[in-house]
């Protein structure tokens, strides 16, 4: 699946959250969306993932622009995986039920199939003892790892993560990033909006640097960190790395 953003933009009221974004998702290697808060990272991620409809330009999937129809977008999203900053898990369902819900009702698996898949994912992320706990009984790090497990349940072609560790303390952040490294090693395409620059640097791939609602720079991650390519990037890195 090849995903391209062609001059795409999204407006909320009179305000453009992102404008004229043109990029192609690199397959098999991570795309890191970096940049100051409010710069448009989340919106671009949502546009690429079919959660928002472009107000200018288009998002193309294998050469065909995504239509503004919820049913088609839903089919597209079923091929993807998502992890958000918080509020991923349904509070009335156990960890295991959170993972089986999409498998059963979006991917039409049987109850037994879905449970087997959930158990193997929970085992992989060392969460099996917590299978029958509700989100409120779990730590923030455990919740995000379950959200990650849920996003992987149906073997998505691309995994989108919108600041998955921004609401966590450093210890839990490390816990989630370790799990994410593990996922990345298996060669799945990741699109990650993050402030975790240490992780970004280790991950490699491509950086899309967004500032003031525009794509300011696009290039190899190593290059971005070796020599900040723009004044905005230098300013951003200086702020992030100061503390």
């Amino acid at each position, binding site marked *: 699946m090849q995903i391209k953003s062609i001059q795409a933009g999204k407006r909320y009221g009179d305000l453009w959250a992102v404008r004229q974004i043109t990029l192609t998702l690199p397959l098999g290697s991570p795309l890191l969306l970096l940049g100051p808060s409010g710069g448009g990272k989340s919106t671009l991620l949502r546009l690429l*993932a079919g959660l928002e409809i472009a107000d200018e330009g288009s998002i193309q999937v294998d050469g065909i622009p995504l239509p503004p129809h919820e049913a088609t977008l*839903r089919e597209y*999203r079923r091929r993807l995986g998502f992890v958000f900053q918080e509020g991923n898990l*349904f509070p009335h369902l156990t960890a295991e039920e959170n993972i089986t*819900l999409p498998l059963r009702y979006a991917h039409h698996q049987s109850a037994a199939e879905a449970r087997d898949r959930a158990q193997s994912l929970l085992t992989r992320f060392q969460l099996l003892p917590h299978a029958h706990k509700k*989100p*409120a009984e779990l730590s923030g790090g455990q919740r995000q790892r379950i959200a990650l497990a849920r996003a992987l349940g149906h073997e998505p072609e691309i995994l989108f993560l919108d600041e998955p560790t921004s609401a966590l303390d450093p210890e839990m952040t490390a816990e989630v990033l370790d799990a994410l490294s593990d996922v990345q090693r298996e060669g799945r395409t990741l699109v990650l909006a993050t402030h975790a620059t240490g992780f970004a640097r280790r991950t490699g791939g491509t950086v899309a640097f967004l500032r003031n609602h525009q794509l300011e720079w696009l290039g190899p991650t190593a290059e971005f960190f070796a020599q900040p390519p723009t004044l905005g990037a230098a300013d951003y890195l200086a702020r992030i790395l100061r503390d």
Partner: protein
Amino acid sequence: MKTLRPHPLLTALSLFLVLSLLGGFFAIAFQSLHWEWRWDAVWAYREKFFYGWCTTLLLGSATLLLSIPLGLVLATERIAGWLPIRQFCTLLVELIRGTPLLVQILVLFYIVGSALGLQNRLLAGTLILALFEAAYFSEIFRGAWLSIPQSLITSSRAIGLTPACTFRHIITPLGLRNSLPALAGQTASLLKDSSLLSVIAVTEVTHVAQEINAFTYGTLESYLPLALAYLVLTAPLAFFTRRWEKSLAYAN
């Protein structure tokens, strides 16, 4: 929220104290009335009273079964309906909630009901009451729906659930959990509201109690059992809802 659970013995002792205070107060009040109790006069009407109680139960159940789906429809239309339908539902709900039930019963039965040729008092009464309660239920449902965090709806879209699936697996269970106390309260109100149908001579239990009072002049002997007759219905409702609420709890 977690509260410390006191010792069972202390709980029992405290309950005993509360009950005796309350009982004592009423005992003194009734003593000072010097009422001449004439239970034998009303006892003769026990079958009629029981029949009225059964009518109330039947009327209440039918109203509940009609008003819950109707309330759900009203809430859904008000949240996501086509503009004219949304306006109609909003107007209807506000009109019903803003005027006395007594007036609604009289107008709907004697004017609208007559125009439609609806003469069965029990049926008409049930429909009028169902419409009234549906307006209140719709507000409870609407509030419960709007209280569900947007992040969960986004999450549900992201995992590829259809709106119908989201409604069934996310909105309904979460909304039910949030609105259960209000739903139970409204159901108890519904049972008591049905007493107003006595004005169009539906022979529910309040109407029967009024008749017994008229025949025997035993006012307290007619109305005290009436209070008990409603309590027998509403007390288990409160009890079982609380247990149901506990079973649905998912966070401390």
